[in-house]
């Protein structure tokens, strides 16, 4: 609308160079109202469409969540809106029948081990990639990127074959090792931009004052890196607890994490376990994840994963 006025203006008066002249303000009433900084109350149709689609998405999402929770508490629930009565017996049944304590312990041990190793290995590498130039840097960066870009099952199957060949199949070690494959690159990818935005003169000053590399790391960088490491650890935690494919390929009954245990219960021979048992396990899983998510969102903004976000200013 407005631009057509501008171009008309420019073509009809060729004597005036169009760049020097500010475009005449569009004279319609709506834009005049906008210019005073007000917004029209009636939203555009596209806005309504977006909100409707969002609403549909949330209805599905909430429906999925709530129905699992209701199912996990419902005693008999077949052909009605809500179950006849509620009880927590499915939880105690699932707890005993599947050895939930053991499964949760395995999940936490795997997650903790993966976080510690991934941070210890990934952060120094991220530091070098952020701060230094060296030969083959592009190749090495690509090497670290590949496991994140490839779907887990493409490298998971050869990896699992190797694990079985080494006699590590179905062990806890194998589960930890396979989960490290995407986690280390992930730590490197999240930490590299984080380190880049730390002012390098701080380290230079420390080094000029005679601090060794180790000292620079422990005394100068560590305190500055803690928020980034925390964010990366939480993300690795979410990924590891939620990682299905890789864990599933190498784990056995004694080394199943929670997701894999739920999957196995759902697909067990003979139509799987009672639906409500699985629902209660799924609720336990979701609660765990949500606690992690809430903690995570206290430390990081979700849009911070790719770029450091500059809050868009209101226009």
């Amino acid at each position, binding site marked *: 609308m407005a631009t057509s006025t501008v171009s008309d203006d420019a073509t009809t008066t060729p004597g005036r160079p169009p760049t020097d002249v500010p475009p005449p303000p569009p004279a319609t009433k709506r834009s005049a109202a906008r210019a005073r900084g007000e917004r029209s109350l009636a939203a555009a149709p596209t806005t309504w469409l977006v909100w409707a689609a969002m609403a549909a*998405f949330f209805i599905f*999402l909430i429906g999925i969540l709530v129905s699992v929770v209701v199912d996990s508490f419902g005693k008999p629930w077949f052909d009605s809106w809500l179950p006849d009565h509620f009880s927590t017996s499915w939880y105690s049944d699932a707890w005993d029948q599947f050895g939930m304590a053991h499964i949760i312990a395995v999940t936490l041990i795997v997650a903790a081990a993966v976080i510690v190793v991934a941070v210890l*290995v990934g952060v120094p590498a991220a530091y070098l990639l952020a701060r230094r130039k060296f030969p083959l840097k592009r190749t090495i960066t690509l090497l670290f990127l590949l496991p994140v870009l490839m*779907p887990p099952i493409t*490298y998971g199957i050869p990896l699992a074959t190797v694990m079985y060949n080494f006699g590590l199949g179905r062990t806890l070690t194998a589960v930890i090792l396979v989960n490290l494959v995407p986690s280390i690159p992930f730590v490197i990818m999240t930490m590299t931009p984080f380190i880049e935005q730390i002012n390098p003169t701080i380290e230079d000053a420390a080094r000029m004052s005679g601090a060794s590399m180790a000292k620079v790391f422990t005394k100068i960088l560590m305190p500055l890196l803690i928020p980034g490491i925390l964010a990366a650890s939480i993300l690795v935690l979410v990924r590891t607890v939620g990682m299905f494919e890789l864990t599933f390929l190498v784990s056995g009954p004694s080394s199943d994490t929670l997701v894999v245990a*739920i999957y196995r219960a759902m697909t067990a021979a003979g139509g799987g376990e009672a639906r409500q048992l699985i629902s209660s396990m799924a609720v336990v899983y979701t609660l765990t994840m949500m606690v992690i998510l809430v903690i995570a969102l206290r430390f990081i903004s979700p849009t911070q994963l790719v770029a450091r976000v500059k809050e868009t200013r209101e226009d």
Partner: protein
Amino acid sequence: MSVRTIRRSGAGTSSASLRHRLAERGIDTSLLMLVPALIFALALFIYPFSYGIGLTFQPSAATQQAWGGGIFANYIAFFKDSFVFDSVWLTMRLALPVAVFNVLASIPVAFKLRHRFRGKKLLTTLVVLPITLGTVLTAQGLLIFAGRQGWLNRFLIQIHLIDQPIQFVNNYWGVVFSLVISGFPFAFLLISSYLSGIDPSIEAAAKVMGANWHQRFRRVILPLLAPGLATTSILTFVLAFSVFPSARLVGDAMGATRVMSLMAFWAFGEQNDYPMASTIAVMMGLIELVVIALVLLWRSSMYKGSSGGKG
């Protein structure tokens, strides 16, 4: 002059000078910090992957007998065995529409959620929530919520939109729903962070020059967003392409959603035919590379340069 003298004097005799010259090219002892990560990448990624590729050329006796072709028997089986090869089409039919939908749907949502408004954090959290649900819970929820006795069908019958319960799960659509629920938040996250990397003053400038909404989007935002869109499309596609648990749980594992990862796992876990499983896995990787290459080709025809921010 002085530089040359130093170099010549320390050519081979002094190790300090060699170290100095290497350090000038960026090689010194601090590079050792890279070693652990490299070892892990080589031992747990490069080695198994090359081993897997080698394995594809060592077909099992059964495969060799059935399909012939010596060391290429696995590949011949992959292309000729319609049971296996059809899964490529089945996977594409699922992954491509879902990836396109997720990316296209998250652009307007990211735009709407770009501005500051009350409850933004809550809304963003809600959108991101499904990432933590995981495929297994989403599958269980879909089975209950959208199943024949579920609330969705019950509601649709109640308002007389349908007479009979619609089959939403255990077919193609069940997997599509589950992929949208898990993939859309992911695409939204990526796109909104790319969007926030675009300097708002560029758009403001276009607005001052009199560009309307459509022109601003088409000529300013879209070219700047193109790299982000390409990356997001690739990642969402990878996510949808490797669908595995939901294809089994809410899909029709022996019919419409017999995807490649299911076939690969079937060969691995149930037939113990590791060479064939590796072949399917390698072919999955190859097909994906082709799609990624196509996306990058499209992206290279778009604007390349700074987006003003750090996008």
